[in-house]
């Protein structure tokens, strides 16, 4: 079904190789999602659950009613931003898997605002919102800058440095949440952001806050930067071939720095947005439980969306739906919500199979050619 739809589009788009490639890539993502959900269903079935029931609650609660839809969008928000962290890095030739730690630092920035606002009442206002977002972006970018400098000046591969920094950020924020910035009324969470400084909800009674608009805005900005601005062009050129870029007078190290810092800002905003925009806590909860994995989920979003900001919007909504629906799946079908991460892992592995659709396309082409030959032979034998 998917393949035939892709195929008919291919017929029309054969003349434009870039469109052709985009369509193939889209088809590959769809195939990966189907593989992920199918293997997920097998694991559910083997574990003694009903896959139908699990998936019914997963998607019914995340896509089929207004509240579900808003909570899907609210969970799409942080993973879209952390997805940009990975995608901007990937465009510069990096594997920046540090969004997780940078997101923690962003949440810390928003929590510092909450602490400041206790002493400076002026900050219990939209001014405080701005300060919190800036602090979050700055702390996220700061952590990313360490990885960038280790890479540029010491040659430390970012896969190692960013994971180490993720753990350092985890324990640092854990320490500050539990020992310094805890809320005296409920020490299992940090000081909550005061009402005046919170990001406003787009729909009252839901979890969807203005942080969604920030994420969309940042996505459009990233698209514009990468494809319509000199810095973005240089960044992509360095990613495709650092040597060629250097010959063209581009400094690849500058692109690496830019990619890390910009990615850190995105992840920092994601963390700050979670703390300043998500009811009911408006705080960091014990063990960072309301933040963990939001950075890693971004990698899935980026890979499904082919590291393209516009492709990542639907990808983020899909992952957002998994995360939003996993709560209902756990509550009503009794399936542990970790299930959705298994599906994500399988999707990534499926995406790692190079050019599934190229293979299918090649197979179909050969089959068509064989059919044509057979038809010609049949014609010839009839004529004879």
């Amino acid at each position, binding site marked *: 079904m998917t393949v035939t739809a892709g195929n008919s589009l291919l017929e029309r788009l054969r003349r434009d190789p870039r469109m052709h490639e985009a369509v193939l890539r889209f088809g590959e993502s769809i195939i990966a999602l189907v593989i992920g959900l199918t293997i997920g269903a097998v694991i559910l079935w083997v*574990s003694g659950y009903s896959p139908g029931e699990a998936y019914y609650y997963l998607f019914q609660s995340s896509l089929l009613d207004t509240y579900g839809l808003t909570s899907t969008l609210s969970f799409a928000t942080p993973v879209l931003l952390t997805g940009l962290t990975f995608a901007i890095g990937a465009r510069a030739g990096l594997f920046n898997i540090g969004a997780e730690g940078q997101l923690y630092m962003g949440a810390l920035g928003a929590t510092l605002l909450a602490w400041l606002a206790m002493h400076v009442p002026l900050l219990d206002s939209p001014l405080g919102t701005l300060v919190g977002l800036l602090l979050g972006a700055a702390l996220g970018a700061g952590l990313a800058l360490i990885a960038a400098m280790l890479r540029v000046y010491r*040659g430390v591969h970012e896969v*190692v440095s960013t*994971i180490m920094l993720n753990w350092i950020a985890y324990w640092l924020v*854990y*320490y500050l949440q539990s*020992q310094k910035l805890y809320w005296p009324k409920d020490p299992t969470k940090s000081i909550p952001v005061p009402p005046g400084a919170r990001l406003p909800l787009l729909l009252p009674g839901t979890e969807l806050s203005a942080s969604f608009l920030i994420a969309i805005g940042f996505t459009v900005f990233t698209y514009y930067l990468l494809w319509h601005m000199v810095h973005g062009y240089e960044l992509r050129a360095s990613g495709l071939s650092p040597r060629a870029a250097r010959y063209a007078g581009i400094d690849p190290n500058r692109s690496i720095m830019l990619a890390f810092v910009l990615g850190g800002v995105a992840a920092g905003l994601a963390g700050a947005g979670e703390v300043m925009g998500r009811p009911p806590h408006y705080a960091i909860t014990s063990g960072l439980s309301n933040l963990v994995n939001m950075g*890693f989920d971004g990698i899935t979003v980026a890979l499904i969306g082919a590291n393209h900001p516009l492709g990542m919007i639907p990808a983020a909504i899909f992952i957002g739906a998994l995360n939003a629906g996993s709560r209902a799946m756990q509550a009503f079908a009794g399936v542990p919500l970790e299930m959705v991460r298994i599906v*994500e892992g399988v999707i990534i592995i499926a995406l790692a*199979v190079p050019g599934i659709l190229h293979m299918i396309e090649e197979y179909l082409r050969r089959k068509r050619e064989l059919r044509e030959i057979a038809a010609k032979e049949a014609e010839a034998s009839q004529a004879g």
Partner: protein
Amino acid sequence: MPESAALIFAVGVLNAMTPILLTAVGEIIAERAGVVNIGLEGIIMIGAMAATMAAEGFGPLAGLLAGIGVGALLGLLHAVLTAYLKGDHVIPGIGVNTLALGLVPFMLIVYWGSAGQHTVPRYAQVPKIAGYISPMPFIAILIAVAAWYILFKTPTGLKLRSVGENPVAADTVGILVERTQAVAVVVGAALAGLAGAFMSIDWLGVLTKEIAAGRGFIALALVVFSNWNPLWALGGALLFGTFDSLSQWLKVLHTGIPDTLINTLPYVVTLIAVAGVLGRVQPPRHAGIPYRRE
């Protein structure tokens, strides 16, 4: 029972060294053949889980074998994607890590009915020499020495390294590039699986949902730190083991430093160590690059 604090400390160092050493030696073998696998973290986690299941059913030896087996299978998956299908080397690893992040907590609930962690019963744990020393650290050291010998002193090792240095030349003289890479990755991942098994059914005696805690990536750092040499990895792993053990002691001694901050120590040390040696190490020239014939 242990006689002195020094002995307990030494055992702690050996235990903390073992998983990082096994994983790093495995990755050195794979990268010497030109394949990078960043899914080690996930392989440790899934290996730890499989080992616990098998050990509870059939005893500790079966547990260790299950860890090796699951690691080898995940290595085979990686080998198919990278060596044969010529795909990207990093993305499958991210996939395996994500899978493990879901699978381990999922199975903890589904299979053991406990959220977050499961204590391995004593009968399923690897028996200890004199009651408190595991044989595994010594096996790990033997494996490291053997890997060094094979890589640098035998024709097999020379062939393997030539694939990672210059696959075109290796191909020309008739070395089977893909098969060599596949074997190296499978062996490497099997060692990571064994590392996971050691953690759950031996050292810690407990399976937790974050059992690897970054060790897969610390091992990746150690590969660089050791200049892709198993003997240097042994030294490096001892160093990391010492810091890991030290941080446990700092917690017990009530130094006034909060535990949460002490927990950052192994990661800080790793970063400093890697940043310190770089520029003086020489990675295999073709590591991480898919090999395509012209």
